[in-house]
């Protein structure tokens, strides 16, 4: 079961690799709880998810994952400072309205943050724009008129935001079709995973 999850979501493996055994984890926009379930089984984490969608809430509860229903765009006021070792935002950053504020909140609530997102700078996306259309792909499976993604960015854009917010990047995985991308990641990577903390 775990293997199929990682195959379906290559960013999960990259995220899990950074999480030590028994860590406390908050997964923002946790969806159906698959990542938390995976981390619970492979890392014995004490994990909680935040999710807005009713169906996903049911799925999380069904699989025995702690889930808290809430809207990320209303902030993380329900969580105390430094309450978690890691706060994860996987494939959700681009769908948040107050992205900059949320990045601050992630590092208020967590000692470290882990974020994954589809790289808008991936060459296939650039090609589609060049050919005159908004990109539609496995990572971006929406039409422009029904997409929840309001804050798409490239690797460079994200790193600029981190510099601007005085956030130190501790690690980065860039993935295309399940494989690590080392050369020209901003062009050749379809999904990026970052690990970061406050620069002191």
């Amino acid at each position, binding site marked *: 079961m775990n293997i199929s999850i990682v195959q379906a979501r290559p960013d999960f493996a990259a995220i899990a690799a950074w999480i030590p055994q028994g860590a*406390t984890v908050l997964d923002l926009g946790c969806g159906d709880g698959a990542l938390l379930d995976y981390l619970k089984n492979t890392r014995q984490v*004490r994990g*909680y998810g935040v999710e807005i969608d*009713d169906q996903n*809430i*049911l799925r*999380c*509860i*069904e699989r*025995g994952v*702690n*889930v*808290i*229903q*809430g809207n990320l765009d209303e902030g993380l006021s*329900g*969580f*105390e400072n430094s*309450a978690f070792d890691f706060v994860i935002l996987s494939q959700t950053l681009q769908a948040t309205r107050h992205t900059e504020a949320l990045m601050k909140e992630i590092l208020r609530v967590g000692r470290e943050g882990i974020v994954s997102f589809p790289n808008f700078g991936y060459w296939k996306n650039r090609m589609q724009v060049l050919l005159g259309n908004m990109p539609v792909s496995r990572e971006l499976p929406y039409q422009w008129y029904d997409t929840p993604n309001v804050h798409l960015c490239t690797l460079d854009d994200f790193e600029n935001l981190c510099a601007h917010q005085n956030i130190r990047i501790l690690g980065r995985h860039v993935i295309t079709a399940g494989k690590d991308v080392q050369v020209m990641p901003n062009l050749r990577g379809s999904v990026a995973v970052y690990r970061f903390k406050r620069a002191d």
Partner: protein
Amino acid sequence: MSNSVGIVTAQRATFDTPLQFKSGAVLPRYDLVYETYGTLNADRSNAILICHALSGHHHVAGTYADDTKNVGWWDNMIGPGKPIDTDKFFVIGLNNLGGCHGSTGPSSIDPATGKPYGSSFPIVTVDDWVQAQARLADRLGITQFAAVIGGSLGGMQAMQWSLTYPERVRHVLAIATAPNLTTENIAFNDVARNAILTDPDFHGGDFYQHGVVPTRGLRLARMLGHITYLSDDAMAGKFGRGLRSGEYKFGYDIEFEVESYLRYQGDKFAAYFDANTYLLMTKALDYFDPARHTEHNLAHAFAPIKANYLVVSFSSDWRFSPDRSRELVKALLHNRRNVSYAEIQSRHGHDSFLMQDEQYFAVMRNYLNNVAKETA
């Protein structure tokens, strides 16, 4: 009614060990009436306790052989194949001390005097109820509940279980409840109490001997309460500004549909509910405040809790708003307890917790399915 628990029988347990109340008062002996549904398994691990709210009682599910129309107050939630599944769980409902449905309360006869307790019945707190419930659990041979479940004031009891007896409850399902009452809620309760206390037929709580009932006060209290259990939206949807005769009558008789409804609800309630019990229940609500002894720090107050929690709130509930449930979640998170929280979109105000709702019932069902797996 294929998924009903069917015909049920209320049972009575008599306790001769004195119970010391938080107020210092002592009840030398008392009765608790209760009902059970489903079967206690061999290792006694599948018991669920249902704690009732202000006007509730032990008749939680099913009907009576001699009164088939008298369906339990949470029958939509409890039964074979229902979210609280009596094929899997042994479910207990009881009437709390101070109640008026068979357990010892103000309208019961005090054996010491041969008269109803009336004004001499001690003020009961949520802690006191949990003490009494624990004795009933002992009597039934249940050392640990799979879950303690309650809405509103019932949720407070469920919480209290996990504080007083951390080892005796594996899961708490706290529904439409709060870590204490808001000022506004206490104010509402005080108006309700004043309606009863100032009724000339109340006689300081000893109206039984006078052969009267403070009906006016009780119905006013219920009318006020009822308004607050609904939402503006739900009332508007149900009654609007509808007039019974279609025209203004320029008088004080019932004109608007909502007036008719409230008076009917008030009369119905006043006909069967005990005024002293109403006072006691509202006071128990007002007093509940586990953070009172931890400098109002709920996270610290919750430190003893070992139970896993499911917290459920309803969007239109303004008496026990979602914000209050989030306070519970935050305090549980602080203590690294397992907790899930669902906020149900509902128009029905505080009463939502008693109503059938697809998402609400699915949340309960999914959560309890996992609880059942632990007991299997």
